[in-house]
């Protein structure tokens, strides 16, 4: 509709503006007050009372008139100004609430312990549970490893060629994706951790940080690939059953 001057796809227009002043100065003042009220309600964590608005808007502002104007302005928009008791708040238009529900997955934070174990797996992979314990000085709870497996950032890689054939853990492609790393070797080394201030510059001289392997998927010399029987035992493969 390029024919009118106000051509917009989605007009904010109010039908009735009869009550508005014809005095240009007053109109300008009202327009500024509307902008201010809009910003205040937008930025507030809670609905804003008319009294609170009156306190912050210029002295002689007619708060109810300002809010009525603002409410009418937002009436047909994707967001509406709604009255909650004697207070005001912006809310998604009710017919669009489906947009909000779609992915209302609450993001959860990894626990400190889980982050520590994840970091050890990343730097020391392939690494067994006993080795994690040795590095951390505390036992790793089963639940912690379960959570890490659930994130999809950690996987069981294989088995260590050692008594008891303990399972080895490593990181996945999803891990690289999530943390914005191109390859596992991009994890900062000892000097860089020191330089970034994350590690004390006065660590003992025998302190070292392993250099993660260039290729995450290559098996270490003392590491075995998982067999189908392993996968079954670990519950990573459904039993084939019978003679199939």
């Amino acid at each position, binding site marked *: 509709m390029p024919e009118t001057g106000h051509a917009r796809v989605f007009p904010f227009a109010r039908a009735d503006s009869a009550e508005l002043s014809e005095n240009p100065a007053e109109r300008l003042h009202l327009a500024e007050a509307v902008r201010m009220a809009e910003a205040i309600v937008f930025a507030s964590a809670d609905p804003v009372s008319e009294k609170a608005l009156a306190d912050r808007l210029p002295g002689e502002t007619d708060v109810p008139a300002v809010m009525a104007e603002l409410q009418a302005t937002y009436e047909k928009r994707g967001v509406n100004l709604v009255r909650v008791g004697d207070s005001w708040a912006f809310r998604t238009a009710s017919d669009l609430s489906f947009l909000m529900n779609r992915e209302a997955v609450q993001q959860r934070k990894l626990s400190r312990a889980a982050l520590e174990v994840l970091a050890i797996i990343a730097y020391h992979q392939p690494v067994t549970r006993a080795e994690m314990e040795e590095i951390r000085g505390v036992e790793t709870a089963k639940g912690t490893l379960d959570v890490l497996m659930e994130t999809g950032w950690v996987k069981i890689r294989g088995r260590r060629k050692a008594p008891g054939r303990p399972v080895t853990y490593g990181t996945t492609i999803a891990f690289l994706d*999530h943390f914005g790393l191109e390859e596992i070797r991009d994890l900062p080394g000892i000097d860089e951790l020191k330089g970034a201030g994350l590690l004390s510059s006065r660590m003992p001289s025998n302190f070292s940080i392993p250099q993660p392997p260039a290729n995450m998927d290559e098996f270490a010399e003392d590491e075995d690939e998982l067999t189908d029987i392993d996968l079954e035992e670990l519950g990573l493969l459904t039993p084939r059953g019978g003679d199939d």
Partner: protein
Amino acid sequence: MKASAKKQDRSGMPLEALWDDKEDRTLSDPEMLVDIDGFEGPLDLLLHLARNQKVDLARISILKLAEQYLEFINGAVKLRLELAADYLVMAAWLAFLKSKLLIPKTGSDDGESGEELAELLQFRLKRLEAMRDAAARLVNRNRLGRDIFQRGDPEAVIIEKQNEWSATLYDLLTAYASQRQRQAISRVAIALRSVWSLKHARQILTRLIGDVRDWTALDQFLIAFIPDPSERATAIASSFAASLELVREGQLEVRQEAAFQPIYLRTKAGRPELEDY
């Protein structure tokens, strides 16, 4: 740096106030002579001195600046203040630069001319000043949470990634470093005080000035600024050994005109251009 005639707790000051807190100090202020706590290293101190010349950085006299800096350091040394190695290395380099500026160039192959070195220093100062101004402009912008505000009562978290677990690389690295450090602490040995070596001095100098080709002549100045005379002989020996190591790695070139003549060392030219991914 122990030279704290007046210690200020700057952490309590508003950000913006940090930018002009040195403007009120002048060279004539006796406190200025002993208080180098407020400076972020020798370049910062030089920049401050340069500003006191009250002219555009492009027009400062580098010679005068070098003299002022040396005067400042000598004053501190006289007061038996323990200066960080960085300040002494810069002093040595400026003494070297001063001699180059005053004595006309002799051979064609004895490193950069005094003018070239002065230009290099000027470039460094200008670049540092530019970054400082940029930081000031940045903090004075309208900032989120101070001047500009986001929605106070967001209705939904729009999750971009499918993963319901959140963790940043910073979280991960912090977790790793702090636990390794915690575990290592039982075995911590007190780090030895690093010997004031020429190699160390050159590292500092590279940070301050960049690669300088004319090491040999410079080393004499560096040695002069080693605070403890008893350390000087070992410093020379260890530095020569370290230099040979660098030659072996292809980072340095070595040249001697004849037996017992000075040994010239310089950074090998033509290092590859850097590239990122």
